[in-house]
């Protein structure tokens, strides 16, 4: 199969879902956003604690992340809800979404003279968009349109030995055979493997940038004055046998395969259109990392997990794969694909990669993932500096 059935957008992108996003610009709009999404079936709430009293780098990062969701290929239309005048401006965000040709609306709680009026306006707008979206049909599209997000979660020693090998096979199949894109992240989880990783860069500039960003994370962590152990690896990683961040990293890098790296991009920045593998500079914190990759426009996310994880995203479907033979039994809702037979049975890693690929084909064509069916999702924008 070199085609899938997707939703065409005016900006040339093709989605695998047709969501209506209701996006909060500040914590004081979160309740209105959540209430509107509770009322309108098919609307996805995007809420967070940021968007005000932030310094410039954080304002830019918050804005870029929210815009990435408003203009995501899987989003049909967006309603932006703001509280009052804020440094992340609701009207500006809604206007930038509209530039991509998507239906876009802006609601301001103060301008509407209170939350009840604002809620009514948000509900009316989201309802109309949901109805319009439901009339749109999936059409055949080339798989080169697709961007494959990669993240790991609750890693253990099986991650690097098994499931990450399946993920690597599937993502390079999309890149090499179909001309798509891949994006992995979690820069502090390169510690110990950064030299070999940087040698995969397409040029010296990208190689040096990878090394510099890894070094920056080590310096940021050292500046805390504490040993990072306990935060990396996490207690669940250590329960699963991972001893140090170096061991976790060397296993984590297996999921990226061994092909060339085109570039390393900023947190929440758009993943480039050219085919190939990209790195997004994010923390290892799963919710923050996955949120960043979603803002970059990845269509779906493969979460390669050791012991199972609830980690998922409302806009970008997440497919959970494990090679730990006990995980599918312990956490069935967190296991879309079980490839443990490649680790402790008689199957090969090529078989494991095929199992994942088959699931990806179903999901991009519309089959919901377990986390979508369960309504699981988390959203967390990475914060750089202090609030003020």
């Amino acid at each position, binding site marked *: 199969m070199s085609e899938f059935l997707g939703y065409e957008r005016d900006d040339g992108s093709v989605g695998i879902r047709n969501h209506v996003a209701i996006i909060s610009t500040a914590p004081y709009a979160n309740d209105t956003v959540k209430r509107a999404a509770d009322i309108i079936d098919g609307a996805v709430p995007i809420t967070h604690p940021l968007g005000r009293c932030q310094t410039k780098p954080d304002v830019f990062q918050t804005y870029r992340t929210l815009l990435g969701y408003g203009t995501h290929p899987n989003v049909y239309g967006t309603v932006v809800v703001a509280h009052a005048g804020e440094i992340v401006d609701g009207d500006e965000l809604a206007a930038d979404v509209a530039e991509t040709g998507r239906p876009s609306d802006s609601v301001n709680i103060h301008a509407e003279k209170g939350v009840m009026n604002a809620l009514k306006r948000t509900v009316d707008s989201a309802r109309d968009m949901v109805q319009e979206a439901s009339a749109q049909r999936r059409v055949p599209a080339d798989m080169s349109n697709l961007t494959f997000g990669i993240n790991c979660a609750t890693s*253990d*020693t*099986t991650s*690097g*030995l098994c499931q990450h090998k399946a993920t690597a096979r599937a993502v390079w199949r999309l890149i090499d055979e179909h001309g798509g894109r891949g994006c992995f992240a979690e820069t*502090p989880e390169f*510690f*110990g*493997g950064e030299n*070999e990783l940087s040698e995969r860069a397409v040029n010296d500039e990208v190689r040096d940038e990878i090394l510099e960003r890894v070094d920056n994370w*080590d310096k940021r*962590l*050292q*500046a*805390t*004055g*504490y*040993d*990072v*152990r306990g*935060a*990396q690896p996490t207690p669940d990683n*250590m329960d*699963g*046998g991972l*001893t*140090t*961040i*170096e*061991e976790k990293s*060397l*296993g984590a890098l297996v999921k990226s395969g061994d092909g060339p790296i085109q570039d390393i991009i900023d947190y929440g920045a758009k993943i480039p259109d050219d085919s190939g593998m990209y790195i997004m500079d994010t923390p290892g914190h799963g919710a923050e990392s996955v949120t960043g990759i979603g803002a970059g426009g990845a269509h779906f996310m493969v979460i390669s997990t*050791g012991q199972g994880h609830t980690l998922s995203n409302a806009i970008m479907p997440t497919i959970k794969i494990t090679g*730990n033979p*006990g995980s599918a039994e312990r956490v069935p809702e967190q296991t879309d694909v079980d490839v443990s037979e490649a*680790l*402790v049975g008689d199957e090969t890693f090529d078989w494991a990669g095929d199992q994942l690929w088959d699931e990806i084909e179903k999901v991009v064509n519309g089959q919901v993932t377990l986390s979508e069916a369960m309504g699981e999702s988390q959203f967390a924008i990475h914060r750089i500096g202090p609030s003020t």
Partner: protein
Amino acid sequence: MADRYLQVVEPSDNVATALRELEAGETVTVAVGDEERTIEVQEDVIFGHKIAVEDIASGETITKYGKSIGNATEDIPAGTWVHVQNVESNYGRGDLAGDKETAAVSE
């Protein structure tokens, strides 16, 4: 024949990952590259955790995937459980950052 549930990634590794439970006192055969080693398990090891496949002296590098995953904080005889109680990392060491700075100043 080597136990397939004890995996050594690269021939230069000095630890194996246990893909089954290991019991203290059992004798296991581990494939390290082309070589097979017979090791007596020193303590119980649960699924997914590591054992030393050779004697490792305090301060020596623990090697997995053919690369350093940290240093031994004590002597680790072959067959011993290798984990956070006897290995320390070399990254994100804010607890040592002050010492490094002091050392740099005194040089």
